[in-house]
């Protein structure tokens, strides 16, 4: 057994433990020097990325991996705390890592003038650790614990600018709704434990029936995780908190939101898949409800974004609309996957949805970074006040254009590839769904044309005479995201073939997920 094997074997806990250790060491390191602390946080995230890459190379070739805490082998798998990593989990971990790395690079100079930065870096690393934990865990109670940690730490991050009343208000709304939601998740965990005496997802998926209590738990889980992801009409906290958090961490909070989305995928397609295969009617029901809510999400998100005047709040509503596309694919998958004739449609939809997760993170994240850059340069967030910024901030304008084209799904950007998969699959289910989706996509373009016209073009106002281009670390952060967007846009086939398809196959291959845990007994 060489060193590489040992590292791969131990990387699932280390992926979560390294940022956690970094989070707790940051206040101690911060006593030395500010620069040392920033470098320390970056190094910790990079080590995490190294482990993620190692684990990804293994999981994509050899299938799911299990790590049991505190035990050498897999005895008593029902009560042990374990991490189970399959291709979907590691895909989400890669997304989270990219977002966290960009956020830390970006905040180097963005947050320079704030004080209390020790706590800031601690919280960012905590959010990253808990998000990764949600994605890698194979235990439903552990999932709840990480959900709560991410909720608490991202709430504290949203309220980081304490001198602004609005950010406190947004944080309070966020913590009220998400702590209530998390308590309902705990209730669902209790229901599972009462019925099956087990807590890990694989064991539960093996034995689950579709009893009345299971239906209750399904509704609780789907609604709560949908709320945490921003499903209309439970989305109101999302533009508030995205709009008021410091823009450098909004991109991390987007990652935490996508982890809830991962939870919906995991619960619907792994935990309940055995139950769904027997009873088709209920499966279609919850699938249809999710499709309805997703269409509502897309429409309302777009309509509300059109009338916003605050730049960051506008992007928050756009993020809501983008989440709708992913929920659409979940619904289409639930409706079609049990039907042998339609299974290809469902697979295409799932590919589109999972590809859209990473695209959504990158595109919306890039737009938030641009909004942050404008705020940094002008101290202005209202679109009514901005004008003619393209003259002084050339690089930022180019990044904004890339983000605009990507979000609204204009070829050849990455947003188009995933949206094309979604349109194609939903058209085969029902043409009206795809028509609404395309219409909303056009309106997204219209929204950002408005932003581009009013903020970047227009006459040069005397107030913005001395606006300068933002500093290098922010440009590097935006540049990294833009490069990934362009590469994903030019070669979508590579991404689908090497990242997305294994994730979809792992999600649909439920027997493998179960047998990795239970087969070893």
């Amino acid at each position: 057994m060489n060193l590489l094997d040992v590292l791969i074997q131990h990387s699932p806990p280390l992926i979560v433990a390294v940022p956690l250790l970094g989070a707790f060491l940051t206040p101690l390191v911060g006593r030395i020097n500010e620069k040392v602390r920033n470098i320390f946080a970056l190094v910790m995230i990079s080590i995490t990325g190294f482990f993620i890459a190692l684990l990804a190379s293994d999981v994509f070739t050899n299938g799911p991996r299990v790590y049991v805490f505190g035990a050498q082998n897999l005895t008593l798998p029902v009560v042990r705390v374990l991490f189970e990593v399959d291709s979907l989990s590691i895909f989400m971990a890669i997304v989270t890592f990219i977002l966290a790395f960009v956020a830390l690079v970006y905040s180097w100079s963005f947050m320079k003038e704030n004080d209390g930065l020790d706590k800031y870096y601690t919280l960012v690393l905590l959010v990253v650790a808990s998000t990764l934990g949600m994605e890698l865990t194979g235990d439903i109670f552990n999932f709840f614990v990480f959900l709560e940690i991410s909720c608490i730490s991202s709430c504290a991050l949203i309220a980081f600018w304490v001198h602004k009343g609005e950010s406190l208000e947004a944080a309070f709304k966020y913590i009220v709704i998400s702590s209530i939601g998390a308590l309902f998740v705990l209730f669902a965990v209790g229901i599972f434990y009462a019925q099956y005496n087990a807590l890990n997802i694989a064991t539960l998926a093996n034995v689950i029936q579709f009893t009345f209590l299971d239906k209750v738990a399904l509704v609780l889980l789907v609604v709560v995780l949908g709320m945490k992801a921003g499903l209309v009409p439970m989305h109101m906290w999302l533009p508030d908190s995205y709009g008021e958090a410091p823009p450098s961490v909004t991109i991390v909070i987007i990652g935490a939101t996508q982890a809830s989305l991962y939870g919906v995928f995991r619960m619907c397609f792994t935990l309940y898949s055995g139950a769904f295969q027997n009873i088709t009617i209920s499966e279609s029901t919850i699938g249809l409800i999710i499709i309805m809510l997703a269409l509502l999400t897309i429409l309302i998100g777009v309509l509300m974004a059109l009338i916003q005047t605050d730049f960051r709040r506008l992007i928050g509503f756009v993020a809501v609309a983008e989440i709708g596309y992913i929920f659409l694919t979940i619904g289409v998958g639930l409706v079609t996957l049990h039907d042998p004739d339609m299974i290809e449609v469902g697979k295409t939809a799932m590919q589109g949805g999972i590809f859209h997760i990473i695209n959504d993170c990158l595109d919306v994240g890039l737009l938030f970074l641009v909004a942050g850059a404008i705020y940094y340069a002008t101290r202005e967030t209202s679109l009514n006040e901005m004008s003619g910024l393209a003259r002084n901030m050339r690089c930022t304008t180019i990044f904004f254009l890339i983000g605009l084209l990507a979000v609204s799904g204009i070829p050849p950007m990455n947003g188009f590839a995933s949206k094309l998969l979604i349109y194609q699959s939903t058209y085969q289910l029902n043409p009206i769904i795809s028509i609404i989706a395309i219409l909303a996509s056009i309106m997204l373009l219209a929204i950002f044309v408005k932003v581009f016209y009013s903020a970047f073009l227009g006459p040069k106002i005397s107030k913005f005479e001395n606006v300068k281009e933002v500093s290098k670390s922010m440009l590097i952060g935006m540049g990294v995201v833009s490069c990934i967007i362009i590469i994903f846009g030019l070669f979508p086939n590579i991404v689908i073939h090497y990242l997305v398809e294994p994730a979809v196959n792992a999600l649909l291959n439920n027997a493998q997920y179960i047998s990795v845990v239970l087969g070893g007994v």
Partner: protein
Amino acid sequence: MSEMSKIVRTISNVIFPLITIFGLYVIAHGHLTPGGGFQGGAVVASGCIMLLAAYGSAWAFERIKEKRLTAFESLGAVWFIGVAFLGLFVGGIFFANFLVGLKLFDNFTLFGNIPVVGSTLADINTGGVLPLMNFAVGLKVIAGLFAVVLVMAYASSLKEWKK
């Protein structure tokens, strides 16, 4: 918060050591009886908060720096996760209980005894790494809870000073 009457101060002076000892007992016996780091830490922290309430916040700000508490809190967390990492390096698996049955010197075991079955006097020297983790959690909870209340007292006393 302002200072309370002399009766309250005297009584809290008397009770404070008892509360602290009880809390430390709960922390130290966490691996044997119901309780543990969080519960014991909460008891000790509530003792400290009682002193804060009796003597007023101005008295506390002179003596206790919030930054020092934060450092203790980080220390507790680092200790906890450090023990988990030690499990990886010594025991070969994350969170492994590597201390059980581990002979350090001649015949000395640190928390490594195998407990006797039956209703006997409790042997604290059991449990492997669990007591160590309990101490870490206890430290973190004492510092964290007290820091929370201290900061809240500070924030609410700001308004009093304005008047």
